[in-house]
């Protein structure tokens, strides 16, 4: 019995080419088609997609094969919208992109969580505008009170959406806020709700939620990649390789993650300082945006360098302890 395995397709290739070059027997051919059902409907296999070579000693699908099939299906579905060029780029630069996603996202995530706070602020103001209109409609406010309250909220919203503050809100740049929100007092009296209000709030909320998850994604990717390397080394059955992998991966994480954080801070400081000198931004949002680029670059540099330092440091420590 041979164990099933999967490999990543490097370039655009037809499935029949793989069928012919990998297999010989009739049973193996049937099994190959069965385990690669996710590719059957396509003329060509895209770069980055998984190709499974099954266990040819049985026609039934084993648990391991089913697990590989699920992974392969996930990859194909994820890459469904990609064209050949972008799929090829992903496959060729997988390690580099993974590095950016892991450490860059620690910096981007923390910086963009500030953006998420800003977007939540916009959402709160929109909610207050809605409440003000409703209170006026219910007769809680006199016309003067309503106009004063609305003026104050529109001024707040105007400040929040100035310049790049509009990014992620999905609100168009119109001459007036009333036009931008699609509201007029008369129409509101008739319909009772701000047109597009729900749509805007939903959109802003989605962007804010996705952005604030960035840091956790970065940390989870790094921990996940480390755990995978350890499992891979330990599954070969060599105790020495397994212990070494535990040492090295722990070292990479213990040094890489703190340095990614520290690098993000130093990068953000350098970028913010540079922004002040070059452009002299005012306050709040501009300051947060200046930190994004610097934070991401610093975190990526710190994390990548720290990971390398941790890897080699831990490997040498392992050798030292192993020699004793």
């Amino acid at each position: 019995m041979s164990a099933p395995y999967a490999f990543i397709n490097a370039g655009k290739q037809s499935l029949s080419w793989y069928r012919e070059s990998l297999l010989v027997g009739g049973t193996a051919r049937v099994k190959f088609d069965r385990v690669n059902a996710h590719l059957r409907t396509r003329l060509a296999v895209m770069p980055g997609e998984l190709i499974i070579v099954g266990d040819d000693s049985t026609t039934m699908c084993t648990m391991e094969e089913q697990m590989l099939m699920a992974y392969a299906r996930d990859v194909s579905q994820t890459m469904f919208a990609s064209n050949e060029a972008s799929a090829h780029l992903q496959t060729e630069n997988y390690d580099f992109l993974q590095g950016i996603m892991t450490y860059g996202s620690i910096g981007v995530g923390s910086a963009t969580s500030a953006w998420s706070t800003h977007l939540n602020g916009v959402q709160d103001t929109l909610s207050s505008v809605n409440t003000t209109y409703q209170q006026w409609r219910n007769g809680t406010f006199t016309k003067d009170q309503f106009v004063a309250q609305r003026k104050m909220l529109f001024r707040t919203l105007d400040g929040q959406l100035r310049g790049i503050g509009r990014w992620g809100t999905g609100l168009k740049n119109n001459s007036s806020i009333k036009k931008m929100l699609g509201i007029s007092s008369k129409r509101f009296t008739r319909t009772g709700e701000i047109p597009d209000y729900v749509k805007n709030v939903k959109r802003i909320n989605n962007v804010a939620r996705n952005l604030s998850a960035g840091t956790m994604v970065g940390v989870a990717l790094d921990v996940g990649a480390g755990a995978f390397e350890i499992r891979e080394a330990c599954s070969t059955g060599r105790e020495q390789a397994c212990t070494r992998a535990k040492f090295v991966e722990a070292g990479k994480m213990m040094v890489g993650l703190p340095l990614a954080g520290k690098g993000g801070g130093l990068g953000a400081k350098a970028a913010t300082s540079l922004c002040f000198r070059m452009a002299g931004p005012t306050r709040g949002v501009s300051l947060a945006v200046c930190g994004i680029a610097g934070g991401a670059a610093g975190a990526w540099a710190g994390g990548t360098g720290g990971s390398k330092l941790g890897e080699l440091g831990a490997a040498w420590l392992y050798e030292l302890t192993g020699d004793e």
Partner: protein
Amino acid sequence: MSDSFLQGLVIVSCVVAIIGFGVDVYVKYRVLPSAEELLANCPVVIDAKKSWDHSGFIGRRYRLVAVNLALTSTELLHSQGLVNMDEVQRIPINLRRWICIPDTIALVSFIVGMAALALLGKL
């Protein structure tokens, strides 16, 4: 320089990074609130606190960046009306040390570690 010396530098750099993380936690949770309290009228600190107040541990890093900028780029920020000079001058020396020295040590240690890796041909 011998290889074992350079390897030693790499290991020291790793140890500094790990200890630095512990120091970072202390600075972010014990020193930062005190410094922010003393810089209560500096717009750069107020804005950073407002933006990153609910962003947990990593958000504190950016608040610390704002305090660090207020202490190290005071003249520049003052010219743009982003700091209150009196408040910055009143910051005690021990708080300044906690905020500025760990970052400098981390940066120097990282550069030394990377230089050692480069000299060993492992970069």
